[in-house]
């Protein structure tokens, strides 16, 4: 949780109704003090497509939601930690319906190239299935495997392998508007 969400949560505690999650509030109308001739510029409301929120970016997804889940050696089942991250990913995708996702599966360098491609595909698919079970439309998620071709870390011991056995969700805004 970051500092910015705390006031919103406080507001929720005070007014429990309609506070399932923080909703960006429209800014109040403002008057341009320099436009004295002609009565100034008066705010007439938000543009169609909603409020531009910093949350609706691939970068926010990557850094604040968390785009990566890790797997134990030779495993493709999701750990509790991975499921927690994926629940947040699913919620974000639910809030931002114009984004699609590609889940990239990866494996550590030990293991043959071809088996690792298949292993990475299983990991990506495990992520996809979880996101779909959380309500994300299947058509919004594609998977692919990089096997051991794109390690996150390059050392050859468990400290790096543990970070390379991963699935990374990459979101892209596909539709017009926000």
């Amino acid at each position, binding site marked *: 949780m970051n500092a910015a969400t705390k006031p919103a949560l406080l507001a929720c505690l005070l007014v429990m109704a309609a506070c399932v999650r923080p909703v960006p509030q429209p800014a109040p109308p403002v008057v341009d003090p320099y436009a004295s001739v002609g009565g100034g510029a008066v705010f007439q409301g938000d543009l169609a497509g909603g409020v531009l929120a910093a949350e609706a970016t691939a970068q926010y997804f990557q850094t604040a939601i968390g785009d990566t889940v890790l797997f134990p050696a030779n495993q493709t089942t999701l750990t509790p930690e991975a499921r927690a991250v994926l629940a947040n990913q699913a919620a974000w995708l639910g809030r931002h319906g114009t984004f699609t996702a590609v889940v990239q599966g990866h494996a550590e360098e030990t293991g*043959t190239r071809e088996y690792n*491609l298949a292993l990475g595909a299983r990991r990506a698919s495990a992520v996809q299935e979880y996101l779909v079970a959380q309500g994300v439309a299947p058509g919004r998620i594609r998977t692919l495997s*990089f096997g051991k071709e794109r390690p996150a870390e390059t050392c050859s011991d468990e400290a790096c392998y543990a970070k390379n056995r991963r699935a990374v969700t990459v979101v892209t805004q596909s539709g017009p508007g926000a």
Partner: protein
Amino acid sequence: MFRRLILAPAILIAASAVLLPAGPLQAQDAPLRIEITDGVIEPMTIAIPAFHGDAEIAARVRQVVADDLTGTGLFREIPAEAHLAQPASFSEAVSYEDWRAVNAQGLVAAEVTQAGDNISVRFRLFDVVSGQPQGDGMQFDARASDWRRAAHKIADQIYARLTGEKPYFDSRVAFVQETGPKNARIKRIGVMDYDGANILWMTDSSSLVLAPKFSPDGQRLLYTSYDSGFPQIRIMDVSTVSSRPLTQDDGAMAFAPTFSPDGRWVAYSREQGGNSDIWLMDGATGAQRALTSAPSIETSPSFSPDGQRIVFESDRSGAPQLYIMGLDGGEPTRISFGDGRYGTPVWSPKGDMIAFTKQIGERFHIGVMRTDGSGEKMLTESFLDEGPTWAPNGRVVMFTRVTPGGTGQPRLHSVDVTGRNMRPLDLDFAASDPSWGPLLP
């Protein structure tokens, strides 16, 4: 007797243009013979005095012949400084006593002449021990630019006559060049002579490419490419360096392709919903069907030389093991039972052996076993060895060896099927995923 053969001018020649018998010459007694068995430790000694003719090209051809032969580990060259005999011409009678005196068991005499863009190479092989020619003399005519191939042809003849095995020097290897940092590797496919010479690039660096596989005639390559953003199989015509997608299946990843021995079929791994199975495609029509349908990973198919069976890798037992199946469905037979994880099986062109990658603990090996799983033997051991490919005669295996760490790199190595003569290929760049093509006609 002297035989004259013309080396086909193009690097790539139609399979019908066969000009050279692939095997050792028939109807020749072979009094001088090195048997390749596990027990051989002493190489045969061979003298290869300076070739006659045009000195510059003759010296280059001689060096390639010598490198081919000594590179097998089966032959040791008697250095020129030790030679007593200095024959004045190619046709001069051999003074066997002089060669016996320097302990040469075999002797190669040759002459290379150049006329414009063409060269002629003539050679004879002598059994110094019994004091007689071994097989016919032969002449190869070639374009001067193909001088290395002419040299490989001579070395192939000598190798075949002295070992009784089919040769492999005049052959090519497809591979992947690797540049850039480990976490953003740039890969491109090349084709080279078996010894690393005459590199031709088949792809640029724009998309990630993996694991090229030669067609049995050496004219096409199958490989996995990410050019669409997703792993799919492409097929490349080597002579025109033009490729097209073989699979383009939204929602199904395709990888690990391999040709059938007749070049008609392509077996590969098709992944859907996280599950990889082996599929078989008719390369001409694109029609395809699944050969396995298991919830486990099935990958790395390789055909038997008769095209009737496929060896592959599956983790249906929990860890990856090797299995053999027919093309008509039916339950695969597991052939690997040792400790560790087995992968990338490749059927020997002789049909008798299967080479594979094996991981035991944190070490990797290239190994071989008979097709029923017996006689398992490790040929190598390192931090990471993988992906064996057979020389066309089934005597040598080439593979990828990767060094560990952030600056770790892959290098191509070869090893004799007996486990001797491990050597890195002489390349000045990192490379992986070798695929050894056929002996060229």
